[in-house]
């Protein structure tokens, strides 16, 4: 399993979009790491998320890979993950943060 943490702001992502995003992240981890995703879906309550000290619209997707990655491959995977988040949530590139870490 690939542990994935998704953080969204309350009211930002519909249930349908949540299902679609989780499904596509699962497909992504199978494709990239040959393993299913174990997604921890975290909702930041209204009035509790801030970016640059202003109300946040940021979506964060962070995962731990199951193997060490070279910079070039990691950058490509980060971009793919960001594009999935943008497409499924309707957020811009500057509202999406992705992180792919080496194995724990």
């Amino acid at each position, binding site marked *: 399993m690939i542990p994935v943490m998704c953080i969204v702001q309350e009211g930002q992502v519909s249930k349908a979009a949540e299902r679609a995003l989780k499904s596509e992240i699962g497909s992504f981890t199978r494709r990239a790491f040959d393993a299913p995703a174990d997604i921890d879906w975290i909702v*930041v309550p209204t009035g509790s998320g*801030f970016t640059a*000290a202003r109300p946040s619209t940021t979506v*964060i997707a962070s995962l731990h890979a199951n193997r060490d990655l070279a910079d070039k491959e990691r950058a490509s995977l980060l*971009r793919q993950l960001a594009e999935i988040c943008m497409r499924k949530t309707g957020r811009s*590139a*500057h509202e999406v*943060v992705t992180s792919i870490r080496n194995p724990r």
Partner: protein
Amino acid sequence: MPLYMCNAVSGTIPETAKPKIAADITDIHCEITGAPRSFVHAFFFEDAPQLPINGKSVFLFASLRGGRTVEQKQALVDRIKASLHQRAGVPLSEIVVDTTDVPASWVMEGGDVLPEPGEEDRWLEAHQGAMS
């Protein structure tokens, strides 16, 4: 990145204090590290199982771009604890702040891998229009 995730026992941090603490965290982080404000995320939770409070009142976990010095990280911890104490009235002994380093190359924001600390100018120049 940085990402500050603050978990508190329900009711410990008043709603009105959260924007003030978030502003303090942003100011403190940028003052100590020189990072752009747009990089700083501060999220507040109550009784979130992902961030164990371990018997205290507040646990704040900070993911920082790697490359900060021990002194910088200690100053961040001390000043953010002081903000939580001042803004929410939480005793210092009830606040735990922990940090972890994440290499800049492991994080993407704005469609590009984050710059190393101290190399933000070129990155910001390329993203200026979209960030404003």
